[in-house]
């Protein structure tokens, strides 16, 4: 069960994105200069051209990786945390608690995420923290469902029954036995939530609800549309940010599917050996 080729591709793509993140901290003089004329096509001095106010597109692209990656990863972390917590509580305790958690999950699953986020973000105002909060609070139901299914499986297994028989406390069982066993699902869910979060953040910024002080790739797309770069045919201002979003989410998807597959196989072989 080695690392598959798709996973290696995922890691390669991901490291190229993190390289961008590192390069974004280079001092000012390494980047193309701010030019007087807008929409300069790519040239040696501005490798990706300039945008509507003469800024170097490459520089904005590198800096955009900061907001896109941190918001994507942090909000996926919040979402996976909430989902895992609710899933474990729901699956392990069962009964009324389970019923309540499941209704809550179903509810959040049905409410359309992006429009809801837009409403919340419009009230809370555009800031880094709010975007993370809004995505994190709304993107957990799928994780909760999957973690719950696994938690139920473990809670009903013979070894947990044995633990209860020898008098182990509930908290002890959850922390020592349930959580380590759902870790694999939670991890794969986290890695698979990052691309959704990155695309959602880009969507919010695209509508104009992103943090203007921390421009992301979505912000670049927003300006390309609203300030007319698109109709000007200045493809260099919006093709690269979109490609960056695609590469990043593809990287996380490939790695996430790899983790998921390996985890499923290990669960299967464990069940066979029992």
């Amino acid at each position: 069960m080695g690392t598959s080729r798709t996973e290696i591709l995922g890691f390669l793509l991901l490291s190229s994105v993190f390289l961008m993140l590192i390069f974004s901290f280079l001092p000012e003089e390494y980047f193309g200069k701010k030019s007087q004329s807008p929409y300069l096509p790519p040239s040696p001095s501005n490798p990706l051209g300039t945008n509507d106010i003469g800024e170097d597109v490459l520089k904005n692209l590198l800096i955009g990786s900061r907001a896109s990656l941190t918001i994507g990863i942090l909000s996926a972390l919040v979402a996976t945390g909430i989902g895992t917590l609710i899933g474990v509580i729901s699956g392990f305790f069962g009964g009324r608690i389970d019923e309540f958690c499941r209704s809550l999950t179903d509810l959040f699953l049905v409410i359309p995420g992006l429009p809801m986020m837009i409403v919340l973000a419009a009230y809370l105002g555009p800031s880094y923290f709010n975007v993370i909060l809004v995505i994190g609070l709304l993107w957990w139901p799928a994780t909760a469902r999957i973690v719950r299914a696994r938690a139920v499986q473990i809670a009903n297994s013979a070894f947990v029954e044995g633990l209860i028989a020898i008098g182990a406390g509930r908290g002890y069982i959850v922390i020592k036995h349930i959580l380590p066993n759902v870790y694999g699902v939670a991890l794969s869910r986290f890695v698979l939530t990052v691309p959704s979060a990155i695309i959602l953040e880009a969507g919010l910024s695209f509508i104009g609800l992103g943090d203007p002080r921390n421009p992301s790739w979505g912000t670049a797309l927003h300006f390309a549309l609203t300030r007319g770069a698109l109709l000007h045919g200045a493809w260099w201002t919006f093709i690269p940010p979109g490609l960056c979003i695609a590469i990043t989410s593809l990287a996380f998807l490939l790695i996430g599917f790899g983790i998921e597959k390996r985890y499923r196989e290990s669960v299967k072989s464990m069940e066979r050996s029992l």
Partner: protein
Amino acid sequence: MMRLLKSFLKYFSLILIIVTLNFMLPRVMPGDPMVFIFGEEIYGIAVNNPELFAQFVEKYGLNLPLIEQYRIHIINFFTGDWGYSFSFGRPVFEIIAERLPFTLLLTFPATLMSLAIGIAIGLRIGWRPNRISSRITTSICLLIHSVPSYWLSMVFLLVFSLWLRFVPVGGAPRPDSTLIEAISHLILPFSVLLLFNTAYIAMIVRGLTVEVSEEEFIATAISKGLKHWKFSIRHLLRPSLPPLIFLTAIELGFTLSGALLVEIVFNWPGIGYTMLQAVVERDYPLIHATFTIVAVAVITANAIGDLLTGFLDPRVRNNGDIEN
């Protein structure tokens, strides 16, 4: 019958939750809720004019106890009084009613067509997932999945409208435009949505088919020598239908959200474009309304999906609920 009643109650309470949220948000946020109802500008004028202010308070019932305000809010929602859009200067409900058909015109055919194509592709690549052709198709679907739909819309617009000049740059057909003109406006946003939905549904069906094809009744069916298409539909698709319907209904929310952003790129005057206008103007009544209408659409789709599942799955039909 019990099941029907239960699911009706569930979806009805979901709509109530959305309406309640709309009621609560302006009132729990810091500041005067009237700012959110009238917009900064009108609020600014009203504050300096006590008579006008009192009139507004009276008209919107903001001096009444909260519970009474809530009752009025709910009655207003069900009677189509969704507030007044200060940026449009018109009742919100009118704007929504005018623009919803455009969104439906775009999403409905795209969803139906992508269901048909997506299921066909999904069955094919799920049945033999390790074939080269299946792998390539899967990669393409994955690739589409990781691209933002509105970005692809921008690329399409650049290539087909600006470079090749096949179709107009955006906007919607006018009532007097010919069929060809109408199609030329519709074709780009439609293709983007079709591409995204098809990729998504194909991936779901692929996953379900891979799972089903490991079951023993599949081996039986093969040994009986069933024809391929008959076999696909009866033995591969049928057992996957309930989860497929469930996932598709949930996904409709995602589809609609994607359509909202695609509309913005193409200046398609539907709900998404309205949402952008509302956000730019911070027109809160209109923001709420666009969210509400999308939510109601998705909830309705889920309710229909629930009904269909009950109709298709004998276990649900007889016992009331699938235990998972």
